[in-house]
């Protein structure tokens, strides 16, 4: 029997490995248990490297922040004092509005959970490449995190959880080209879908061309996608272009800067409007 040449043997090996990985990709798209098992094993094997990296990068960041804070401390204190004064007024006004809102909602026979249950998480690492934009956070299934939970930060919506293991979760950012969230223009209530384009800017699509949208309008989550509760900031309109077909071309500057993310909140329960049940109606004043 003739021996197989190394060139052919390597080409054969490439074919086998390539086919196996194509199957793996197809299985992961379908959410197969096999792909989950293989990915879990890979994650388990690399956990020591990640723990070592976290302590190393934590030390480096602490040193960088220490020197940065020395210079910026006085400026930051003054800015924070101004911010606290402004926010105190906002909280008071917000409380009054919440009470009024609560009364009106009861009149309408609806109920809203205004404070969704959430847990804080630190960002372990981020991948802000062109074709995928994802962050890894240090909370996993042991903390109650599940796939498709919404993730928010100070300022607005961040993304949704796409996969979870014991101690970590991966979050697909709103700026990922395959991401999407339903949004509404706060001023005119024009609805649409906010999608990422792989860069820092977002786009709002499926907005009727006769909708009232102007530069500077604020876009918030509408709650219709079943992931984000309504009212979380998404971004501000920077460009309203010529309509493409029946839809306006709208570009947004996001409220949350992906590069600056360090801490996030994972919303453990979907929060939204639901009709009162018979029990709720009985206890209604």
């Amino acid at each position, binding site marked *: 029997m003739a021996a197989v040449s*190394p*060139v052919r*043997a*390597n*080409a054969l*090996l*490439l074919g086998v*490995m*390539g086919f196996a*990985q*194509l199957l*793996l*990709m*197809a299985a*992961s*798209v379908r959410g197969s248990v096999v*792909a989950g098992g*293989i*990915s879990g094993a*890979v*994650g388990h094997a*690399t956990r020591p*490297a*990640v723990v*070592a*990296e*976290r302590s*190393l*990068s934590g030390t*480096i*960041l602490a040193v*960088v922040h220490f020197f940065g804070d020395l210079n910026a401390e006085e400026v930051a204190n003054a800015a924070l004092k101004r911010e606290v004064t402004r926010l105190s007024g906002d909280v008071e006004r917000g409380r009054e509005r919440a009470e009024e809102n609560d009364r009106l909602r009861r009149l309408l026979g609806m109920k809203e959970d205004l404070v969704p249950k959430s847990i804080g998480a630190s*960002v*372990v*690492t*981020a*991948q*802000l*490449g*062109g*074709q*995928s934009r*994802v962050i*890894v956070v240090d909370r996993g299934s042991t903390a109650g995190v599940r796939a498709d939970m919404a993730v928010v930060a100070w300022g607005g919506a961040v993304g949704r959880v*796409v*996969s979870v293991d014991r101690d970590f979760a*991966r979050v*697909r950012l709103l700026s*990922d*080209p*395959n991401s999407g969230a339903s949004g509404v223009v706060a001023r005119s209530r024009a609805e649409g879908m906010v*999608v*990422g*384009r*792989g*860069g820092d800017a977002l786009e709002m699509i499926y907005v009727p061309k006769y909708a009232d949208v102007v530069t500077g309008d604020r876009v918030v989550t509408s709650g219709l996608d079943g992931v984000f509760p309504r009212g979380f900031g998404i971004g501000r309109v920077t460009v309203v272009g010529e309509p493409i077909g029946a839809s306006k071309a709208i570009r947004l500057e996001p409220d949350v800067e*992906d*590069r600056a*993310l360090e801490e996030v909140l994972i919303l453990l329960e979907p929060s939204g409007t639901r009709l009162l049940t018979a029990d709720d109606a009985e206890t209604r004043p």
Partner: protein
Amino acid sequence: MIVVWALLGIGLALGAELALGSIAPGATRYVDLMMLPLATYALRTSQRSSMTVGCVSGLLQDYWMEPRLFGINGLIKTILGWGLGGLGARFDLNNFGGRFAAGACINLLDEGLQAGIRRLFGEALAPVHPVTLIVRCLAGGLLTAGILAIVGKVGRARSAARPGRRKA
């Protein structure tokens, strides 16, 4: 022993990639540190070992950095390991120019293969800016040339130290 060195190299590259994402997330668009073990093994060892190193480093990258298509980076890096390993066996790429060109080319091909495979699986694609692509290729080429120069020096120092140790 080669397996231990390969695992150590991949582990270091993964740690550096995760640390980069934590310290300077914006830089991850321009630099793919998981390419470095692949290029090192392709230009210094056999085609088969570069395919294996590429496959393992790609799968690790998929686990930590890929939101949907688990296996895409594994497949791409296996193909790149096969291609670069084959070229490395036929041509002398172990000089600055060859290493730089190899590093730049695998980063360019990676971008093209990413787009092709994602389209195959029905994913939406982000437009690629030429400046980003040029910076990525330059960074990839320089890093590959730099790492291979360091690995070459360490290898020479180790082989120079061995006879001495034997004599002692």
